[in-house]
């Protein structure tokens, strides 16, 4: 099994940390994982993306052109990465702020209204966890307990009190996907 993912949005959405969570969770499940961020000005509020590879085998290239899954969180990323999904792959996006919905017919497309849900829950910070939860329900190869373990590993101890909230967000996300 090899799963290659791109998560793309803008800085501050938690794109990098979502990717980090995925990578950590995979390692908790004794898989190989590689996390390759687009670094630089992106970290300071511009567009931002991260490539995550998860596999049973040693990971070859950390840099990829085509992906099994694209998680798209803003319109510029949609424009850039819709075409990068492998035929038969998955495109998941948050419709908030998306002006042109994806049109490809050879891939599976899911919408997850994470921004809306996070606002409704009055917890805008857990937006990315809702998206991650949605992803886990589409690609259920990572166990939730491993994800929570990965969360514990990736969060500094002072933020461990937020773990229950994040876990809740993951569960909310898992029930939130719709196929447009």
């Amino acid at each position: 099994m090899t799963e290659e993912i791109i998560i793309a949005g803008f800085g501050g959405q938690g794109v990098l940390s979502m990717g980090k969570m995925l990578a950590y969770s995979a390692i908790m499940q004794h898989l190989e994982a590689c996390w390759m961020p687009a670094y630089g000005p992106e970290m300071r509020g511009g567009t931002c993306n991260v490539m995550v590879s998860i596999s049973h085998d040693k990971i070859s290239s950390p840099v990829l052109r085509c992906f099994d899954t694209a998680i798209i969180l803003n319109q510029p990323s949609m424009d850039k990465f819709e075409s990068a999904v492998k035929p038969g792959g998955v495109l998941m996006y948050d419709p908030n702020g998306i002006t042109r919905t994806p049109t490809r017919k050879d891939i599976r497309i899911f919408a997850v209204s994470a921004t809306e849900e996070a606002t409704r829950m009055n917890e805008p910070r857990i937006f990315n966890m809702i998206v991650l939860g949605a992803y886990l329900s589409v690609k259920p190869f990572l166990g939730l307990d491993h994800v929570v373990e990965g969360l514990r590993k990736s969060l500094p101890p002072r933020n461990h009190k937020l773990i229950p909230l994040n876990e809740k967000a993951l569960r909310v996300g898992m029930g939130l996907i719709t196929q447009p």
Partner: protein
Amino acid sequence: MKGNEALAEAAIRTGVDAFFGYPITPQSEVLEYLLQEDAQKRTGMVVLQTESETASINMVYGAACAGRRAMTSSSSPGISLMSEGISYLAGAELPGVIVNVARGGPGLGTIQPAQSDYFQATKAPGHGDFRQLVLAPASVQEMADFIPLAFDLAFKYRNPVMILSDGVIGQMMEKVYLPEPRPRMTEFPEWATIGKKPGKERKRITSLNLIPLEHEKHNQKLQAKYRQMEAEEIRYEEYLCQDAEYIMVAYGASARIASRAVEMARAKGIRVGLFRPVTLFPFPAPQIEALSLRVKGFLSIEMSAGQMIEDIRLAVGKNQRVEHFGRYGGLVHVPEEILEAFERFYMEPHGH
């Protein structure tokens, strides 16, 4: 762990005595990690944010004079500033480890990854007739593993050793097994200037020699050292080379990306292998020469306009065709375009 962080943690575990560094993207995590992890408290390691890269390398020089394990880390423009100091280390025969998490140049260039410092690292890290050992990690694991290796080599040869990484390897995260902790040194080499021992002659460390005949002798001694490195220290990795008809040659991040291209080629039934130099100096020329006698062509994959290819051509001589495929200026190849380039060169009937 990020490559940069793994390298920093390995430095603590290797019992490094001193780290001197100045922030620069994409390697700032090294200095940050050492200070956030309080390396000074963990092992007594001296960690200092310096006023410039020039100061950093000269501090490495100072600590090396005391026989300590000293290192610095920077990225391309910062390494340029260090070149004088690296030359002094080599001239005075001092051990030191310099990490270059390379970015695109020339000039201020870009903060994106590149391999355009190959010439600088392997041919001209500074003025004068000298060489430094160059290790090129291709994974986060090697970022960690090469720290103890680099110090072993630096002390074995009393010579600077460079770890030539790039923004991809420095910034990416992978699973890593950290090296076993080594104790800090308590005994120092006999050549170190740590205060004259009673009854013993005092020591001096310099790279200066105003008598040309003596200086030539000193240089001959250095050259002998470099020949010994070429005989003993070549490191490389072969992937699917056994039955290969074509060889891609790549190091660092390029090697990782090219390995995927090799797999894609194999899936199409093309017998391609990957040869990865791990040491860039000494360059695995004899191994490449041996391969050249039984394959049909080489493709050098670099995040540069073509630098390592010159060493490959020297090794191959007239035996075989050597082509280059590079992305540069901060762009990184993807496996698909490497395969496309390979097919363009070698699979099309009228390849140029």
